[in-house]
């Protein structure tokens, strides 16, 4: 099952990944990271829908996302 990992401490909460994800599984977390942004994340229950396309990674300006397949 493909999986995405977010380095939440460097996420700036821009939202490009959320728009890019074709399965709409990315959302902003409810907490703030040290930079003061709400980091993007995929909750475990949504992870099963990840197809490992890396669209999110491709739109991320901060190399927050690692995609494994």
């Amino acid at each position: 099952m493909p999986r995405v990992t977010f380095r939440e401490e460097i996420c700036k909460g821009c939202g490009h990944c959320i728009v890019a994800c074709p399965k709409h599984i990315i959302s902003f977390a409810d907490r703030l990271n040290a930079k003061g942004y709400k980091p993007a994340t995929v909750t475990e229950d949504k992870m099963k829908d990840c197809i490992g396309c890396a669209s999110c990674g491709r739109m991320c300006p901060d190399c927050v996302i690692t995609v494994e397949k």
Partner: protein
Amino acid sequence: MAVVFDRPKALLDVSTHYCPGCTHGIIHRLVAEVIDELGIIDKTIGVAPVGCSVLAYNYFACDMFEAAHGRAPACATGIKRTNPDKVVFTYQGDGDLASIGTAEIVHAANRGENITTIFVNNCIYGMTGGQMAPTTLIGQVTETSPYGRDAKSTGYPIRIAEMLSTLEGATYIARVSVDTVPNVMKAKQAIKKAFQIQLEGKGFALVEVLSICPTNWGLSPLEAMDWLRANMIPYYSLGVKKDKTEEVK
């Protein structure tokens, strides 16, 4: 499971100063991915501009120069001519390349300098707080065009890709965008081709990348992408403007 997407090695593992959603981050990553894929990190030398990406020298893992405003192509010329076996790229914004640096980019292109230029066009001067750029659209409000850019007083936005394509010395000129995943992938292909042209000794290559500036446009990152699509792409058309790779040498 294997990692299929990760931070490229040619980008140092540091947090950037760019605003949330700024497409500099995407473009830096594409250049770094290309450097990784072509295996050229050890012989690449990049030249950073004056502008938001002035600190690019802190982000790319290869040897870097910080050039004076607009002079990156001249700096790159000095590097490449005396070190022809190295891969030299400039990374410039619209103030750096299209305003103060027009002489330097025109002449580097005209001489067919064997360098690669990444030109980031976001219709505004970001670093200094949102002033009018030569690429600012008619009617666009900026700090120095507070009533909207007026062609009578300040002329029309310059289409750099088309302008440079008229020069014999230019081998490959393309305009791309990084507003959607398909466009990002096309942008990467163009950037890769631009570096490959240098590796093959085939002359000057420039990729103009349409980009957003959410902070100075006064929009959210997502709104800014919409604005780019609605306003910039109609004026700055995407596509390869010149490709004489086959004819060179």
